[in-house]
């Protein structure tokens, strides 16, 4: 049994899953925004990075790790809400290109802004849990206390968001304002408030992923979310941008496939793998694997 858990394939799956849940979280945060406001938030990764910087630099002042996480999440919610109110609100009903351009510009502002406030150097965040892998006998089992926390907390967060949308009154209002804003307004839902709330939730989910990525990986620096944002976008696009479950599943798969590619082929192909997966999935189902067919009106 021990030999199975330490085999090359299971090791790759474990490492890949730990990466994949993070990709899934970012994909989920993109889908949340897309569903409610039909804006693809190109600044999602940068917003998460910025919020992570706001809280996690407090570590250097001797604050507890979890307090810093809390500060980051509050900063993310503020940033998400303000962004929706100030930048995104004027874009509703405008051409698609306008929102793409504005969000790309915001991405540039946030990354340069973070570099000028906190410098471009990577900061290592001291992990609250050990990152050394468990051992089974003499072999390594590719799980550590931190990666268990990583997978567990990501899954909890996903389930939490799902429960919020499914079982609460606020969730119902959020879904209603995404599906039929006019009708919801007539029924007394404060639609514009709901849209802002969607951005706030999404921004917090993204920031949580950014904190975990910075703690487990190469540290916190202004462009450290670029790669993960792209992977998250691809996962969301494979799911069709409409399906939270599909996005999470695609994210998990991307993480695992990337680890296999890095292990069995070459690490230099890792960056291109998700692009290829996206191309293939779009050739099979242009509307996304997990969406229902829709008709177009002329």
């Amino acid at each position, binding site marked *: 049994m021990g030999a199975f858990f330490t085999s090359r394939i299971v090791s790759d799956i474990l490492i890949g899953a730990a990466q994949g849940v993070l990709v899934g979280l970012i994909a989920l945060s993109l889908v949340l925004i897309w569903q409610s406001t039909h804006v693809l938030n190109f600044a999602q990764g940068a917003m998460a990075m910025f919020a992570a910087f706001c809280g996690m630099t407090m570590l250097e002042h001797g604050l507890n790790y979890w307090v810093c996480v809390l500060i980051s999440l509050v900063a993310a919610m503020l940033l998400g809400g303000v962004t929706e109110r100030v930048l995104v609100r004027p874009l509703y009903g405008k051409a698609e290109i306008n929102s793409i351009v504005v969000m790309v*510009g915001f991405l*540039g502002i946030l990354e340069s802004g973070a570099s000028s406030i906190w410098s471009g150097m990577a900061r290592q965040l001291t992990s609250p849990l050990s990152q050394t892998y468990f051992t089974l006998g003499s072999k390594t089992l590719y799980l550590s206390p931190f990666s268990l926390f990583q997978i567990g907390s990501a899954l909890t967060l996903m389930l939490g968001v799902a429960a919020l949308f499914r079982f609460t009154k606020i969730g119902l209002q959020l879904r209603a304002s995404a599906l039929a804003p006019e009708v919801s307004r007539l029924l007394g839902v404060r639609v514009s408030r709901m849209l802002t709330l969607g951005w706030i939730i999404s921004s917090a989910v993204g920031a949580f992923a950014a904190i975990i990525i910075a703690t487990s990986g190469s540290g916190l620096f202004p462009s450290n979310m670029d790669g993960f944002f792209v992977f998250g976008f691809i996962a969301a*696009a494979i799911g069709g941008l409409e399906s939270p479950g599909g996005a999470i599943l695609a994210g998990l798969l991307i993480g695992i496939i990337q680890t296999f590619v890095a292990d069995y082929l070459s690490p230099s192909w890792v960056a*291109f793998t998700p692009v290829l997966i996206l191309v293939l999935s779009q050739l099979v189902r242009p509307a996304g694997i997990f969406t229902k067919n829709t008709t177009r009106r002329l």
Partner: protein
Amino acid sequence: MKITQILLRLRYSSLGRLVLALLGTVVAICVVLLVSAQSDTYIANAGAMTIAILGLSLLTGWSGQVSIGNSGFMAVGAFTTGIWANHHQSSPIIISLLLSILTGAIAGLLVGIPATRLKGPYLAGMTLAFVTAMVPFIQSLGKLTGGSGGLFFANLSSPSWFANLSGDPQNFIVANYRWAATVSVVITGVAYYFMSNLFASRAGRAMRLVRDNDVAAELMGVNLGRVRVGAFVISAAYAGLAGSLVALLSGVARADNFGLALSIEILSLLVLGGIGTLSGALMAGLLAAYASTLIAKLNALFGLNPYSNLGSNSQGIIFGLLLVVTMLTAPQGMAGLLKKISHLRARKEAE
């Protein structure tokens, strides 16, 4: 009729467009020979940026596809030029340029065939994925591309007849700057001429129709896929040419320089100038020439150390802000504002 009106009317005939491009190039060469060597380096780089902006203007403004991956195609062009220059030191630069156009177009075809099946945000996301994958990919080909350190080769140097012509034949440094700017201006003129013809051609009209109403375009017999991929390939070829020019001017090709930041810079200049108009692209090119000096002056005005965190990143912040503010307040850019002003003036005169 006023001279400006005659000049503007010229663009409606193909001979007129040739005259316009020639006139513009000649004027630009005169400027190059008159201004300081320092300004010549700005003009030379602005030429390369103008070409990249023209390509993106076609793709985004005319075929309606937003790309933030054009700096990736510039990288393809730059490294083609670098690798070629290191293997064939004596070959004329026109071959480097043509090869870079070719490799840019091929890369554009490879990315474009799958990408143009996507729409709006999907396409933009795909080009973003392309550009973020491109930088580490080029760096991983260490033997061919010099890895993260980059590739070094001979940059443009003035032939002796030009050095004699441009005044002081002993001062090779100044002659080299003048020559580089002249070459850049001429290439930009040719690129502009081709684009202005394309804008006025049947293919250009087909692109506009695809952008505005793809169903109507299909009913008119326009092959949607071919038009979309075609626009993507031409835009990538322009980016390849721009990248080649950047490489020839500096003698270095480094993958880092062709990352997402450059794509954002091109996009902001394009939006600022005016998406989908030739005049907008030219104004954006002029802005590109003096952007870095203006930002350095701004830094000095606010007493910022250019090497401090804020000073070295102010350019990124300013470009991002310009992009956001222009899109929210005047989405047609400077070209749109000028048009509005001239319309207002014409109405006043009529009254």
